[in-house]
């Protein structure tokens, strides 16, 4: 299944370049499912393999394809099972991937219901939309900005009066920086992007292509304030804590409210709200749909609604239950969600290729002798070549293959006026990789840090792919010392190690932890999947 997805991605990147690398097409890869899963695990390890559990039907059990953030509904669902006997077997997946799965008509027979943070995406995909029989919102949470209490005081903000324009001004004045998740991979990120674009475009109704174009200069200014990007809400919060110098986070209110150090502001001029509709499917039997209906009713019963709002800080959807303490009850305008795919795609495309700060990445690639075994080098070449369909305009990619030492340092930039030449360069250098020598992990990492240096205008990161233990050059302790001696700005560059072949989990986990990165597992999953997943963090 993943192979198919990658094929689609590759072929689209050959055709309409920008559509292939951006927008919806890029969300078709299977790895985002794993991102969703990864965001649930507290540790820094993540599985990059899409789980393929046997999902056979079982009477009395509803197999639900659910947004990853719904993992926090466990206790509520347990309570409902006790009360109604309906058991839920969730499969967590990123919203975009779930929509894609429905769009390819692959939910049939595997899932009894769909439960996403929002069906807004889904409605833009006709095939996916036609598979929903009925949908009922279960709870809600608007996009909000959580700002450090001290920053709120410094800006002299009254939280209830803050508008998107106020936020824009604070960013432009250099008084506010923030982090948000990647809109191409995370529903909270995309909802945030729509909120910001609507809020700053002066559009009075649903965004059009023209609105997006007109707002581009303001949006570009706004996204200069974005200091953190992430493929998942979980890592975003970790990185935010680690950095300490970022002022705010953009995410769902429920995520932000769980932190005591943030003042949560719903901009006065409008928000996009996730309403978590539990949706039954045309492909299911009437008996199953009846169970879905019963589950929906149970979730909307006042007692369940109280439990939901108290335990998840989302808002209840029945008028008789008040929101949890601390959730402001004044109404907000709901910003209309784009009504066409072209607007949604256009917005994502603009964000990735024009608006956000570009990324600079060093790929530290183990091409030691052992990579010649088991077709490992070929897998690396294939994964990297596939990845070229996914690089954004303005992105700087450095390939740093190593064995006993760094073998070469080759930097390519995807220039908007001629992206092909940069991408062809990456493919050429990838093809030329050969396997020989020992494994000098730490010496090579030090070189990568030196190459990147301090850079405040880009998202900088290092990807480390190795299939073995460190056998040459600097020792782990020496690297720790090297890292500790770096200036603060350089210590903010995270390393994303990929566990592959015979590499040492403990060694790589240490690197991820030390540098504020995150470990990706290509031993259980695929190398393609790991590279893809890391894109959300670059």
């Amino acid at each position, binding site marked *: 299944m993943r192979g198919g997805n990658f094929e689609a991605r590759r072929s689209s990147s050959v055709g309409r370049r920008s559509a292939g690398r951006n927008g919806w097409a890029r969300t078709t890869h299977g790895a985002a499912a794993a991102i969703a899963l990864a965001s649930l695990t507290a540790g820094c390890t993540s599985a990059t393999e899409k789980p393929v559990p046997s999902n056979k039907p079982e009477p009395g059990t509803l197999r639900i394809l659910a947004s990853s953030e719904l993992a926090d509904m466990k206790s509520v669902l347990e309570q409902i099972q006790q009360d109604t006997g309906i058991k839920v077997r969730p499969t967590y997946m990123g919203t975009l991937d779930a929509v894609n799965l429905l769009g390819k008509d692959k939910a049939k027979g595997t899932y009894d219901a769909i439960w996403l943070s929002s069906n*807004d995406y889904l*409605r*833009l995909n*006709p*095939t996916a*939309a*036609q*598979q*929903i*029989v*009925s*949908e*009922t*919102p279960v709870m*809600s949470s608007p996009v909000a900005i959580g700002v450090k209490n001290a920053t709120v005081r410094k800006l002299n903000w009254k939280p209830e009066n803050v508008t998107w324009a106020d936020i824009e001004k604070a960013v432009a004045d250099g008084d506010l920086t923030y982090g948000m998740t990647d809109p191409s991979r995370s529903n909270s990120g995309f909802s945030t992007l729509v909120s910001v674009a609507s809020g700053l475009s002066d559009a*009075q*109704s*649903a*965004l059009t292509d023209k609105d997006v174009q007109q707002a581009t200069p303001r949006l570009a200014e706004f996204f200069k304030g974005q200091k953190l990007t992430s493929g998942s809400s979980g890592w975003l919060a970790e990185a935010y804590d680690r950095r300490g110098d970022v002022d705010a986070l953009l995410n769902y209110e429920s995520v932000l409210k769980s932190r005591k150090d943030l003042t949560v502001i719903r901009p*006065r*001029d*409008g928000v996009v*709200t996730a*309403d978590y*509709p539990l949706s039954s499917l*045309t*492909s299911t*039997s*009437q008996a199953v749909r*009846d169970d879905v*209906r019963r589950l929906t009713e149970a979730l909307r019963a006042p007692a369940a609604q109280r439990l939901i709002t108290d335990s998840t800080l989302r*808002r*209840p*959807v*029945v*008028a*008789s239950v008040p929101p949890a303490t601390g959730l402001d009850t*004044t*109404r*907000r*305008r*709901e*910003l*209309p*969600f*784009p*009504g066409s795919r072209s607007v949604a795609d256009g917005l994502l495309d603009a964000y990735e290729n024009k608006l956000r700060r570009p990324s600079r990445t060093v790929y530290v690639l183990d091409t030691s002798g052992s990579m010649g075994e088991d077709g490992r080098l070929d897998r690396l070449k294939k994964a990297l070549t596939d990845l070229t369909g996914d690089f954004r305009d303005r992105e700087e990619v450095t390939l740093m293959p190593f064995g006993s030492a760094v073998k070469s340092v080759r930097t390519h930039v995807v220039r908007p006026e001629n992206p092909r030449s940069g991408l062809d360069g990456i493919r050429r250098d990838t093809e030329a990789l050969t396997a020989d020598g020992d494994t000098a992990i730490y010496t090579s990492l030090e070189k990568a840090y030196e190459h990147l240096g301090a850079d405040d205008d880009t998202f900088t990161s290092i990807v480390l792919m190795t299939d073995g233990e460190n056998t040459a050059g600097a020792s782990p302790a020496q690297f720790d010392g090297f890292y500790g001696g770096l200036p603060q700005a350089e210590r903010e560059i995270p390393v994303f190690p990929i566990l592959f072949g015979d590499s040492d989990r403990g060694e790589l986990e240490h690197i991820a932890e030390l540098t504020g990165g995150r470990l990706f597992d290509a031993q259980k999953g695929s190398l393609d999947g790991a590279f893809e997943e890391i894109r959300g963090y670059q």
Partner: protein
Amino acid sequence: MRRIVAIVLAVFLIGGVAAAVVAGREEQDKSTATKTVLGVIGSEKAEFFADPDVVKALAAKGYTLKTETSGSWAMEGLDLKGYDFAFPSSQAPADELAAKYGVRQPLPRPFYSPLVVVAHRSAAGVLADNGLATLPAKGNGTFRMSAYLKAAGADRTWQQLKGAERHGELSGTLFISTTDPTSSNSGALYLAAASYVADGGRVADGTAAVNRTAPLMRKLISVQGAQQTSSDAAFRDFISGVGNPLVLVYESQVASLLAQGQDVGDLTVLYPDTTANSDHTVVPLTDEGRALGELLGTDKELRKLAVRHGFRPQGTSAEFTAATAAHTTYLNQKLTGVRQSPVPASKVLHEMARRARG
């Protein structure tokens, strides 16, 4: 695109039919007294037919009912062989189906429900203060369609209405949220009523008429952005406090919620002075189907149950008036000051919806 809808639905329906037929046969073996009747219904009636009291009332008359839901407009694309009846939520698709299957008129129309606009009190008050609505009572009033269409045509925003500045949520273009008119009945009926008013009280009868109102209809739909596919989801979002200040729903949805004794918060029901009715019309495909359709409209118990689900039974209004006596705050029982808009023929309405959706 509608073709695709129909095909997808047809596939699942065929599965449903096979299962239902088998189930029906088994039951008939056990008890020859009940007739199993198979129907395809609009989703807004699913709760009615699932109501245990409705099941009991039908059983008392010797019927076991099996239903599958489908969008009213999608029924035209289905192969209804093996079904006893189809039950779309308005007359236009019912007439199309009747013509297709050679069903004799008149068709049983057991109950109906007018389209209404729901608003929170703040929004309703601002509309009233600006001549877009009249609000004689706290929970219900009249929505002035021609004034609204004029405002919509001029891209009027909430900010331009006096009094809106007191309510933070009232900003942006003034519009009514509806379902997607190309796939859902209520969205299509909205265009029927709006085009009727916009064209000076003329029912669109062809392309020329559709042309006359097309730019305005396009505007009414495009400002909404992504639309819900069912009025059920739209209403629930509204009750949840999520979404646009003005939402088009069936009166039956409001009445049903009130009948269940649910808290509706500061809901205000605005009856458009010209509105379209959802005429729930049975298209009998067999004699059993016709008998069942007649029964729904004549059986006292079933009429009473229809009222419980918010529908207005055809003929006398006494039952609806009596049953909703406690809810006159929200409901305009006699539909005073509400004019019924005729609905264009199915083909014309389709064309109108398609062009409005763009």
